[in-house]
């Protein structure tokens, strides 16, 4: 084992939670899990004997046994963290507050690569690594109050794209639908306009024919003066 490894102890009564935490630790280069505890008493023993660089503690850690549906049986995380700081001051303690809020279910989709440790401050979330813990001034009496956070996943982006595509398609369909509705409303008006236009055209043609016939009848077979002028001009 290299001397610059970060040695980590994990504590949670849920094997699944410890499994997730182990993955989060092991994705960091040089970080190794050297012990796991299922309750406060064992966590204190492990840290006393192994002197880890970092202890990651679940807020909902039981003192001895965690009871189903009795939240009061899982309140030992903060006390454990404070005791570790007091007994082994060189150990940095990360107290995780949000492991009971569904983050683990989402982790199954994201994988360890999609999970980071953050300090969830009022103004922003600040990601950190286990290696960054040593010598930090922002430790609150040796304890880092932290959360697990999921990074934005690619599948989520694809989902978003699908949603946006659906929204665009839906919007476009609505627009086409409305255009058709408006067009259908205009069909009767169009028919009337076209019929009126056709009547005007036919009327004009009829008027032209009747006028020619009337001129021929009035002037006999003599060409009309304007027609004679037109012939002379075209011969020049």
């Amino acid at each position: 084992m290299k001397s610059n490894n970060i040695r980590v102890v994990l504590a949670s009564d849920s094997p699944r939670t410890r499994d997730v935490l182990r993955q989060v630790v092991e994705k960091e280069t040089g970080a190794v899990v050297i012990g796991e505890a299922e309750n406060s008493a064992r966590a204190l023993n492990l840290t006393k004997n192994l002197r880890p660089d970092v202890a990651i503690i679940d807020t909902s850690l039981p003192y001895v046994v965690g009871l189903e549906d009795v939240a009061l049986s899982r309140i030992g995380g903060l006390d454990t963290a404070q005791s570790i700081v007091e007994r082994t001051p060189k150990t940095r303690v990360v107290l995780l507050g949000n492991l009971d809020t569904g983050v683990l279910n989402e982790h199954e989709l994201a994988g360890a690569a999609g999970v980071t440790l953050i300090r969830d401050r009022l103004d922003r979330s600040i990601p950190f690594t286990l290696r960054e813990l040593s010598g930090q001034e922002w430790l609150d009496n040796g304890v880092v109050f932290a959360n697990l956070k999921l990074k934005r996943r690619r599948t989520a982006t694809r989902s978003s794209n699908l949603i946006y595509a659906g929204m665009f398609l839906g919007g476009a369909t609505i627009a086409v639908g409305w255009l058709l509705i408006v067009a259908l409303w205009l069909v009767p008006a169009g028919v009337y306009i076209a019929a009126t236009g056709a009547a005007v055209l036919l009327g004009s043609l009829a008027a032209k024919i009747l006028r020619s016939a009337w001129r021929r009848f009035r002037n006999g077979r003599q060409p009309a003066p304007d027609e004679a002028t037109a012939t002379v001009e075209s011969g020049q």
Partner: protein
Amino acid sequence: MTTKEVLQECRLFGTLSDADLGRVAEMTSERDHEAGATIFQEGAAANELYLLQEGKVALQMTLPAGEAIKRVTIDIVTENQVFGWSAVVSPNVYTLTAVCLQRSRLLVIDGRRLSKLMEEDTSLGYQVMQGFIKVVASRLDDTRQVLLSERSVT
């Protein structure tokens, strides 16, 4: 969500009428705390009652441990729960220390004004105290179960 709606979600005030919720809402304000912050210390004067809107808060009791002082968590408060009851119960001194385990948003209720309102309007006071009793009874039941389970292990 309006202040009245926040109060209605809470077990302590859930049975109050809309008008009474409005009267309680008038004596509230919102406050945010960072994770790790101490909201109040054991032994300090209790002037404020708190309703946790977001986050998680540990209530710790101080125990003498030789020359050192050790803190033991008695309960963890989650969303829509009330803590800091000492603000409406004589002698108005906090008996526990409250520490934020996560970034937390609190609805702060003026303890003196609420006590006065409960005294003036006994019907409202009775309903609030009934809510207190339900919460305390539920917590006592949980404590018994934990005690029994830990005694059976040790």
